[in-house]
């Protein structure tokens, strides 16, 4: 028997009042507008984080590659999507952006269907519209990085819709979609948990005979999890071992509460910071808003009509999701952008389920619709602000990769294209660190693997002419990358010096000179000193090559590489120096 406050599941659907307009067509218009907005905002971006690993590290089609965990996630479906795109269109095409937008619209459409059945068309329309431009989750909706998460969410939402059919065909579709969700990203887990609770507590009987709907996907996932334990991660980006510590367990309540607060902030758009024209995620209003949501929940339980048992499934989903974040993500806070997408969807679905049989007065409905649509404004702005940062990051990535390609065979195979913390002290702040703007180093891939992937799929990097035309910061990043790849430095002279030009300065002096293909030698008279700095594509001499002490001579030899562009040198000296050909 259900307890007080819970009823057996009904197949009720909130029908629009007679004469009320159907907002579905309006949603299609919103989708078209959102698609245009997102395609425009994502211009100039390139791949990010996980995608670089899919490009360079997940090479081949063997099961140990396709099923290799990425940061504890099974991501075979997105990996296959990326492999197909790379094979057909290369890594620099618009295809990934189009897929991102298509997945975004698919999720919004499926979400609309689920919401509409519970709270009616207009609130569903507003919520789905907000979801399409959910800037709190800019990493997901405003970058192709979101392909994995949105694939899993689309499958999960589809599974929930299929389960609501209440027939065998629906069960079979749901089972397949849950497998797809779990094979796309771990965000599929809460959908599988929700489906399991739905099957156990509601839906047509006999329930025991339907265990496989969620049981089979979860079982397969469990088998994969155990099997994958013996696999080594494919590159540093993929390595994120599960780290369930006692501290994480103790932090479970706070982390779940924070996740709830962050989801409320994402939905309301109250995470922006007045006066700051940049991507932000301020959590100041989160706790009071979350307490208000819990108070509303208590009121709903106490004052509203009896709840459908399905509410248990819709409550289990966000709880499972947030608990998983709390337990596994020891190095990430719940306010990380990528967690907001799932958090907002699952909280909105739970809210809708709670409101299923509640009579929503027209004025309240109008207020909810208005609030959701107003929230779309700060969220869309956050996509805009985030996209600008990602474009800047893309310019840096493409310049650095151009440098790797120019360096060619001379670059050490294991050199990371962008080591943690970055190689170049850039002025561009980045994102993804608990709301703090910190330098972004997303391309943690070995240069050798990168070059191999370029040979197979084509290059995402700037061509040399594009690099020449790129902003100064990107060119300086390319120089830093070349320095790391080629390691230009002064060595003792190996033979007699010729064509020497003498300079003398009592105080500090500076010489700028092109470095000829054969290199350059510097001799400093006793009592003096000279420090050599280099540049190639950059405006400033940002690469230190070494110092020549008084009474000694050193030479710089630069290896030939894929570019004919000459290196430039700057010599800061005191005393008497001679610049010669070695």
């Amino acid at each position, binding site marked *: 028997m259900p307890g007080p406050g819970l009823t057996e599941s009904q197949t009720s659907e909130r029908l629009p009042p007679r004469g009320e307009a159907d907002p579905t067509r309006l949603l299609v218009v919103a989708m078209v507008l959102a698609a245009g907005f997102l395609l425009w905002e994502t211009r100039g971006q390139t791949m990010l984080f996980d995608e670089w690993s899919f490009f360079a590290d997940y090479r081949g089609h063997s099961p140990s590659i396709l099923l290799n965990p990425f940061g504890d996630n099974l991501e075979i479906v997105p990996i296959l999507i990326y492999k197909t795109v790379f094979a057909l269109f290369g890594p620099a095409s618009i295809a990934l952006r189009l897929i991102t937008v298509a997945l975004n619209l698919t999720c919004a459409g499926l979400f609309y269907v689920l919401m509409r059945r519970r709270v009616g068309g207009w609130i569903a329309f507003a919520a789905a519209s907000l979801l399409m431009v959910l800037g709190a989750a800019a990493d997901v909706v405003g970058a192709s990085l979101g392909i994995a998460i949105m694939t899993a969410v689309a499958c999960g939402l589809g599974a929930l819709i299929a389960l609501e059919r209440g027939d065998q065909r629906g069960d079979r579709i749901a089972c397949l979609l849950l497998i797809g969700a779990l094979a796309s990203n771990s965000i599929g887990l809460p959908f599988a948990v929700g489906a399991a609770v739905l099957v156990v507590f509601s839906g047509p009987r006999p329930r025991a005979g339907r265990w496989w709907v969620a049981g089979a996907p979860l079982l397969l996932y469990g088998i994969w999890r155990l099997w994958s334990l013996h696999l080594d991660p494919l590159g540093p980006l993929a390595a994120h071992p599960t780290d369930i510590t*006692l501290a994480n367990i*103790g932090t479970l*309540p*706070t982390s779940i509460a924070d996740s709830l607060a962050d989801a409320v902030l994402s939905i309301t758009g109250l995470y922006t910071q007045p006066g700051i024209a940049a991507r932000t995620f301020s959590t100041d209003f989160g*706790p009071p808003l979350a*307490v208000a949501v819990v*108070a509303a929940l208590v009121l709903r*339980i106490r004052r509203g009509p009896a709840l459908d048992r399905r509410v248990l499934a819709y409550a289990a989903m966000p709880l499972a999701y947030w608990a998983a974040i709390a337990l596994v993500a020891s*190095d*990430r806070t719940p306010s990380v952008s990528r967690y907001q997408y799932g958090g907002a969807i699952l909280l909105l679905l739970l809210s809708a389920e709670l409101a299923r049989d509640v009579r929503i007065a027209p004025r309240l409905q109008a207020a909810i619709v208005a609030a959701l649509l107003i929230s779309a404004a700060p969220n869309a702005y956050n996509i805009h602000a985030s996209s600008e940062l990602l474009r800047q990051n893309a310019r840096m990535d493409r310049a650095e990769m151009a440098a790797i390609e120019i360096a060619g065979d001379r670059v050490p195979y294991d050199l990371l294209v962008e080591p943690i913390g970055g190689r170049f002290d850039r002025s561009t702040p980045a994102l993804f660190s608990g709301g703090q703007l910190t330098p972004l180093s997303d391309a943690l891939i070995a240069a050798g693997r990168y070059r191999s992937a370029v040979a197979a799929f084509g290059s995402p990097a700037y061509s040399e002419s594009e690099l020449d035309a790129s902003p100064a910061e990107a060119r300086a990043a390319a120089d830093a990358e070349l320095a790391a790849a080629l390691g230009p430095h002064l060595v003792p002279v190996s033979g007699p010096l010729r064509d020497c030009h003498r300079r003398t300065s009592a105080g500090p002096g500076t010489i700028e000179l092109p470095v000829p293909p054969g290199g350059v030698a510097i001799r400093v008279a006793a009592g003096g000193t000279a420090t050599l700095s280099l540049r190639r594509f950059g405006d400033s001499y940002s690469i230190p090559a070494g110092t020549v002490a008084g009474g000694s001579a050193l030479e710089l030899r630069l290896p030939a590489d894929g570019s004919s562009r000459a290196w430039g040198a700057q010599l800061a000296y005191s005393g008497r120096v001679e610049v010669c050909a070695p």
Partner: protein
Amino acid sequence: MSRTAEKGRGWPGPIPLLGLLIVGAAALTFWETRGQSLYADEVTIFSSYRGWDPGVLLRPDGGHLILTTLLVYKTLWQIFGAESYLPLRILHVVLASISAGLFYQLARTRIGDYPALAPTALVVLFGSAGEIVATPFGSLAYGSVIFGLAALLALERGGRRGDVIACICLIGALASYSISIAFLVGAAVLVYLRGPAMRRRSAWVIAAPVLLYAAYRIYALHYGGHGETNISLDNVGNLPSAMLTELAAAAAALSGLFRVPGQQGVSFDISWGYPIGVALVGLVAFRLRDRAPVSPRLWALLATLLAFWGLIALNLGPLRAPDASRYVYIAGLLMLLVLIELLAEARLARLELAGIAVLLAGSILANVVALHETAPQYRTAGRILRGDLAGVEIAGRNADPNLPILELPDEPVVRDLQIPVHDYLAAAADLGSPAYSPDELAAAPETPRAAADAQMIRLLGLHTAAESALPPPPATPPVATEAVRGGTVTVRAGCVVLEPTGPGANLVLRLPPGGVSLRVAPGASASVALRRFADAFAAPLAPVAGGTSAVVAIPRDRVARPWEASITADQKVEACPVPA
């Protein structure tokens, strides 16, 4: 809620379950407090409250009358000695268990025998109140809570016997910790709500402890600074903010929402406490506005809680922050009792009960982890203190007896911890030593060993004393070289001569009993640092200027372990033994 309905078939009775819970929690707490030692005020009680004279027993500690605590501690030390912390660890878990038992008794009368076990579990494992729950130091506050809760129970029991017990308990509470004034306020509300006739007849229950305590406060004035409170105009002005912070701290602790995601180790963030605390205040206000009569206990608990927060707020100062974990225990316990009063009157659906159970389980989880993470901090502090005290004992009579045993800032808040060496040594001679023995110290971790070295250097006043004419070195024993870096060493007539091969040459010497004389060749100053038990050298002594001589004289003590000196210099240094 029907109490019969809640009894499941085949369930063990609530008392065995309560026993299991309390014993389990006591075992966990006892385990977590392993390796701890005297902490903060306990050192004061040990050293400064010697003898059984009333003048000693009534002397305030940090402004508090701590008579009952003194009696218990002194009795335990008298019987078992102070060498082992075990009796105090046992006392701690016993007091925690009694406190939880009394809480359970209050809770079960409202929500039933079985449901009352859940909040009791939170009280007995309330790790966010680490200063009370995670260290025997918390015993200082348990007396107040135990007597206070017992007084409330006795007053609710009523009758002549109940009143007498309540009166005694209130006196006991006030004699344990000044914060018990809050329980006195709560008890006064209970007596007041008995109605005019009963109120007059029971007034003595409150009047007696009030008069006794007032008399004591007047008497305590003669102790001077020890009897002072922290009440100030600043604290009066900050009262609302401080009370809101205290509310937030208790709400965060009770909800379990005090940890910081992504942060390993101890954390206590009260951001969540503000909205939760405000929501709870709203809930109470909503209940008080309701036409249904409010139970006397709810009024009494609210009065106690407000008085408690008010007293804390008025006495804030350095080391007395409004969200200090020792205040969280009492406030959390009282808030939990208020919530129980509110919930007992509400008809809750199963879903709501399930929700409350989940929240409570989450809070217990967070608090248990907090207990586990906090206790080692006291273990570390205890080890360092034992090292400090070992340093005091080794320095012994060679130390200036009036120097404080711990080097603390000269501020009123730590005045009671400024214990002279002679007081500590006398207490250790009477009751036994809580310090490491020299052998234990040698086997202890580096931190306490370094603490002992620093203490000995400070208390013995070891320094580089400039000497224009060094005495001739005695025949034995010579200075022994332990290590040399950046130079060469030659030995001449018991002396060691360091000849640097470059700047910053370093020589480590094992010193003879009397110490060492240093003759530094002209040039830069040479630095000298000492160690005895630690691996690392303590902070350097005053440097010896180039071209001068100095002596580091070391008095003889009861430990044979030699001192070692690290000498760093750019030029030649000659080190010779000096007579003991």
